[in-house]
């Protein structure tokens, strides 16, 4: 077997996976839950510094969700 798990040599997915620095990615704002049921809530939780039209960032966000679930599964939370 050649390097990095692929049987046919270079695998671009490995490079993609390694370059996805999702741990250091800016986090989305958590919706504030203070106040009562009728309090005004901000619906836009997206981080303004992130360019969501960039496909790589969209992929990273999806990956982050799965990674968080995986980590919680490992810790026995899920």
């Amino acid at each position, binding site marked *: 077997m050649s390097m990095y*798990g*692929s049987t046919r040599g270079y695998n671009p997915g490995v490079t993609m*996976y390694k370059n996805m620095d999702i741990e250091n990615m800016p986090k989305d704002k958590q919706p504030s839950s203070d106040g009562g049921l009728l309090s005004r809530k901000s619906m836009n939780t997206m981080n303004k510094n992130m360019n969501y039209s960039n496909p*790589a960032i969209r*992929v*990273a966000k999806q990956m982050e969700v*799965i990674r968080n679930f*995986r980590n919680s599964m490992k810790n026995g939370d899920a």
Partner: protein
Amino acid sequence: MAMLETNEPMLDGPIPGESLTAELGARPWQSPPQYANVDDVIDYYMSRMSQEDFMVQLVDVLEMGAPVSAIANSIQLSGVMQGLHTIDSGILVMPVIMEMIMMLGDAAGVKYESGIDNPNKNKTRTSLLAKVAMEYDKKLEEVDIKEAVEEKEEEPDVQYSSGLMARRK
């Protein structure tokens, strides 16, 4: 009795230029993809990978020792061949596919090989071994073995027995 010959060369591969013999646009990957953006591609793979039969087969393949990166690459390439998405979208969504595969492997309790780390990381390089062996050979050539043996023979072999009551020469 006819014997199965396994050393025959494989001559059933495509001949050069065979890929150009089909009508342009006849292949699925030559027509516009079914899913044009990354979100649609991810949705497609998420729904497909959530199917039970897929999960069972995936766990079997992981248990066989196939690396996650190679499985993910095969999955996205088959999508390209079916004309579901372009190869660019396929490569873009590969981290999500890999993450999903690893999550399914974790959920099934399979010890899988991710294929992300370099398997030769902690191994000694063969080039380094060759270099050390060459230097060792050079040093051996420099040493005159005959002289070294003679010096050793000249040394008197004196053995002193220990103890207060031992006989002395």
